[in-house]
């Protein structure tokens, strides 16, 4: 479901394919509902080792994140700090992860590559950037840890299920047409880099 809350475009889980396909790169959105965390080891288990995820995530959101959590299964968990990690690490396995799980929205840091963009186009998903390093701000957008899976992987790599409320701002970096904001930015930066290098190389030659 997509609605406008306090002037913000807010999507609530389960996301429909229509909700997701309406998003375009550069859009700023917020989400409410159920997300899970999964990074390197979760992808390896789910894709390379073919294991079933501890919980169903079809139509939900995956956050590339390793939170700081206190508490225990018996006494309940509290989420101290959470923020996105480098998404590109998961590029190798993300196509198959999206295909297998039906996840609709991926939250991370920095961009992802061609294969993820292909999966977004084929299966109707998006990748979004959540400004990173803001772990307390982001923790305060969460309501509750609802489940903990694969704790043997350690706190950072475990599969945490979390209920969130107006989590954001999320900036759409890959949309379901396969458009990729960071790939465009990289070209722009690379061309400016060449201009700058040309500008300083003469000075570096003469000064040093």
């Amino acid at each position, binding site marked *: 479901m997509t609605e406008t809350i306090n002037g913000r475009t807010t999507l609530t889980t389960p996301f429909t394919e229509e909700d997701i396909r309406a998003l375009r790169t550069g859009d700023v959105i917020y989400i409410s509902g159920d997300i899970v965390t999964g990074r390197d080891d979760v992808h390896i288990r789910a894709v390379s080792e073919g294991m079933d995820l501890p919980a169903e995530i079809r139509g939900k959101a995956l956050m590339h994140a390793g939170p700081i959590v206190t508490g225990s299964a018996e006494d309940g968990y509290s989420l101290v700090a959470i923020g996105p990690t480098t998404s590109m690490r998961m590029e190798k396995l993300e196509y198959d992860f999206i295909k297998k799980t039906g996840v609709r929205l991926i939250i991370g840091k920095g961009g992802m590559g061609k294969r993820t963009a292909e999966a977004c186009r084929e299966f109707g998903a998006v990748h979004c950037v959540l400004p990173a390093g803001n772990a307390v701000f982001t923790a305060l957008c969460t309501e509750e840890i609802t489940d903990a899976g694969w704790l043997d992987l350690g706190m950072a790599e475990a599969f945490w299920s979390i209920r969130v409320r107006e989590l954001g701002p999320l900036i759409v970096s890959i949309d379901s047409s396969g458009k990729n904001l960071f790939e465009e930015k990289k070209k722009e930066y690379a061309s400016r*880099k060449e201009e700058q290098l040309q500008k300083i190389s003469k000075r570096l030659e003469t000064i040093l």
Partner: protein
Amino acid sequence: MTVEEKKNRLTDIMAAFIGYTAVHLPDDIVSKLEDLRDAEDDPAARSIYDMMFENMRLASQLGRPSCQDTGLVQFKIECGSRFPLIHQLKDILHDAVIKATAETPLRPNAVEPFDEINTGNNTGTGAPALFWDIVPDDESCSIYTYLAGGGCSLPGHAMVLMPGDGYEGVARFVMDRITSYCLNACPPLLVGVGIAGSIETAALLSKHALLRPAGSHNPNKKAAEMEKLLEDSINAVGIGPQGLGGSSSVLGVNIEYSARHTATIGVAVSFGCWTHRRGHITFDSDLGFITDTHAGFTYGL
């Protein structure tokens, strides 16, 4: 105080200091971020800076780590040869990391290679990392702390250039990394460049460069000029906060060097994310201390 009491006290202060640096950014970084925010023209980039400052405020208010990736803990130690706890310091810092991990809390990040097991307390083989420097005939001890996060450690890179590549080669080496791998590394970044004869000396110097304040300059005028040239050039690329574009790209560029071999230019680059958790604390022989990075830090008052 007995040696045992002194040892416990230093462990407690260091654990508290490490925890404090996970929650509060160093004063020079906060001030540099304020400058970058105030000079930012792009409204989207400005709103990201506003979020960063709100996060810093919330972290301080709630006493929680400002970033969930509290890194691997590293120490650069400049220890006087007559500092009373020189023999115990390695154990003290090891215990301080375990204590800070439990009490702050820090995220356990240390994984033993081959066993592939997270040790759960941020210590392990060679962790925390200690970079020692013994100061002859001195009884104080100066300790730099650094929480090396994964995101900004990932783009670290080193190689040995040929003299014909020159300083233009060094500039290209640094900037190629910035416009590719660094978009993910939480810019605006502090860039540490090491120049030396071989790969490991350059790499270590690039990390030492990150321990210098943002806005400081290498005492060598030519090195300082290269810092400025690189800083201006990288800023002109306009990477902005989170790599999404903006008026600037970096918190600064710091270069450290040692004499190189006549036939080589070893060069390395290390990066510090915007939430650059660096601390510096100096102890006298009675364990009185001062810190020039965190004016707000107190212990036992």
